[in-house]
């Protein structure tokens, strides 16, 4: 017994010793490209949504891909915070490690960034989805989510019409209510109402970005009560909607999930070439990462508020699902052109939307920051 313990320990020590000699990796410049650190909340880059998109933008900028992250650890990397109280230390750590750019995603980072950015005036930061932390070294990027959501609303309503659904209902599942998620919800509903003015709308907020089980239970409930399509803007929580839609579609029920941020077609695949994700509202957070990195590379980084809309390809919809059909795709693209030209105006707040004729008055959406 004694001997085996000793043997085990000596193996461990030998392993540790043998590995100590090698130099550790560090983010040294391998080319003239800038270095970047992505900081995420607890859900990390595997959320198949928001963080994933920011990460993909970084990968694309360096010519890497999800499968081949060759320059990770040299030009770019990511640090995930387990709890909210790690936001400030993680930001300071990244600033100490002297990256050319530090990217954070989501409004939960706003306060931490506002605090740290002042202490490191020479460090460049970019934050997505926030426009209220004005600092001379922070670039803030926001999106016209209401426009992209309008397009998926149009697509879902057209599909319901084409399928001849009588009295179709549409659902929306949000993460935590705030003005950004409200843009998704009211844009989506405006899109539906532009095709089916009488359509009934239901909404639900999980109050959590990482609880797919809540969305799954709600989705089951709604699908059972005749809801045709559900759009989730809830981070990892929304994966529960897709899981439920997959389950029901593989049983032959005609219900749909609508993806968010990234194209979630692949997540909804339940049989060869068949996906329960009808379309996805594309919020190209990758555009934001690439925009900021380009700016740093060209020494054009400014502390500005950048709004990425339909026109700048910051938002859009996915036409990957073949069941959408060429006809519907063409009609949604027509709506898209009208938005770009300004012929259709989608309003971003619940207060404005409430004033529209026939708009639901009892949603849980909130304009309160």
């Amino acid at each position, binding site marked *: 017994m004694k001997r085996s313990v000793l043997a085990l320990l000596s193996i461990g020590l030998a392993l540790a010793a043998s590995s100590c000699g090698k130099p550790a*990796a*560090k983010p040294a410049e391998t080319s003239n490209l800038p270095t970047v650190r992505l900081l995420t909340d607890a859900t990390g880059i595997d959320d198949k949504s928001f963080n994933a998109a920011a990460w993909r933008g970084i990968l694309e900028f360096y010519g890497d891909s999800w499968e081949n992250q060759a320059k990770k650890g040299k030009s770019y990397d990511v640090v995930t915070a387990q709890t*909210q109280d790690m936001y400030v230390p993680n930001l300071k750590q990244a600033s100490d*490690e002297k990256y050319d750019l530090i990217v954070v995603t989501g409004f939960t980072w706003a306060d931490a960034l506002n605090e740290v950015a002042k202490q490191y005036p020479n460090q460049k930061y970019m934050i997505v989805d926030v426009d209220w932390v004005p600092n001379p070294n922070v670039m803030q990027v926001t999106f016209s989510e209401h426009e992209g959501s309008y397009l998926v609303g149009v697509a879902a309503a057209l599909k319901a019409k084409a399928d001849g659904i009588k009295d179709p209902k549409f659902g929306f599942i949000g993460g935590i209510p705030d003005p950004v998620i409200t843009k998704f919800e009211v844009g989506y509903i405006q899109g539906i109402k532009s095709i089916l003015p009488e359509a009934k709308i239901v909404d639900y907020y999980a*109050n959590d970005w990482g609880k797919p089980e809540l969305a799954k239970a709600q989705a089951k409930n709604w699908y059972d009560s005749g809801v045709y399509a559900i759009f989730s803007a809830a981070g990892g929580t929304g994966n529960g909607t897709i899981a439920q839609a997959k389950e029901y579609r593989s049983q032959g029920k005609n219900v749909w999930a609508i993806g968010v941020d990234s194209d979630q077609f692949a997540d909804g695949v339940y049989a060869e070439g068949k996906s329960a994700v009808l379309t996805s509202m594309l919020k190209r957070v990758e555009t934001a990462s690439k925009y900021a990195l380009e700016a740093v590379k060209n020494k054009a980084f400014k502390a500005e508020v950048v709004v990425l809309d339909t026109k700048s390809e910051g938002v859009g919809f996915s036409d990957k699902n073949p069941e959408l059909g060429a006809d519907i795709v063409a009609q949604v693209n027509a709506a898209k052109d009208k938005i770009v030209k300004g012929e259709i105006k989608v309003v971003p707040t619940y207060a404005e939307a409430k004033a529209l004729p026939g708009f639901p008055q009892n949603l849980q959406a909130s304009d309160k920051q």
Partner: protein
Amino acid sequence: MASDTTGKPQPATLRVGALDAFIASDGAISLLVVLLGFLCGTVLILAVGRNPANMYAALLQTLTGFDITRGTWNARYIGEWLTASMPLILCGLSMGFAARTGLFNIGAEGQYVMGLTAAQFVALYGPRISGLHWALALLAGLVAGALWGALVGWLKARYSVSEVVATIMLNYVAYFLSRFLTQLIPAANTYRTPAYPETALLKNALFERLTNGSRLNTGLFVVALCVLFYWFVIERTKLGYELRATGFNKEAARCSGIKVTRSITASMAISGGFAGLAGVIVALGSFGYGRVLGGLDNYGFNGIAVALVGNSTAGGTLLSGLLFGMLASAQPLMQSRQIPKEVTWIISGLVVVFISLRAGFRMIAEWRQKRIAEKGGTRDE
């Protein structure tokens, strides 16, 4: 076995070998278990083709502030390590205190949330007198956590409600109650309240200066006092003796004149108080505004592991809290060196699993005793 009845241990069994001494020492076993955890972590990192030296470099930076890769030194990392350890130590004490008195408190998370919530309210609405304001917030958090714990203790003592089930359920009640109450604050939105006044913060200028601007705060004194209080109450007071006696055998305690209902309630209250204080320290030490919780912070749950590894003693819990705090605050430093973040969870998970070795070693010890007794105590090892 017949040998059991052959009499008292022979003189030979008194020859305690190194192994016996080792088995007899819970501290040594805990140390071995931690080393084993790190050994497995090292092998795992090698298996995924990364360099384990990077993990040790990250741990070194956490403990000393020295960044061996860049050759820089920054005391802030030490401060952040201690900051991360504080709530873990307190939640470990919470779990440990209940365990020592025969209760299984899975509710430290809920008690933590109640403490945090109470502190946030006092921070926003309390009297803005420096020195008094944060002290009141600490007191409020202590009381809130204690009441949340005492409720479970009372239910258990009076109505035999299982404290395991009750505490788990109350975690969620606490979480949603906190969200609901905090959102009632005017000008609070869906994720934060307005900023606290300066007088509510646990900021400590000296600590900040010493640790180059980390968030290390006055909470450190609270943690130190709590560790001393824990040791003193458990080991040195009549109350501690009564509580432990109730834990060993409720009926025997009742027969010997201990008020069992009061005892169990008091146990859970003290246990909850520790967790409540952890909530205050995070709320007023690491944040400058109140949070509408968007998820559980998990300090309470991690406290279970802290207490297990620390063997529910005051000193052990302090050390194991520092260990888990080190793993938590080394995690981003590891990620920065391309060590997968999951490694720290695997190590802490393995440490908890290996702790069961303690029972295994005791079995070995008993078996050896028995064998020596069988041989009539004549044979050496």
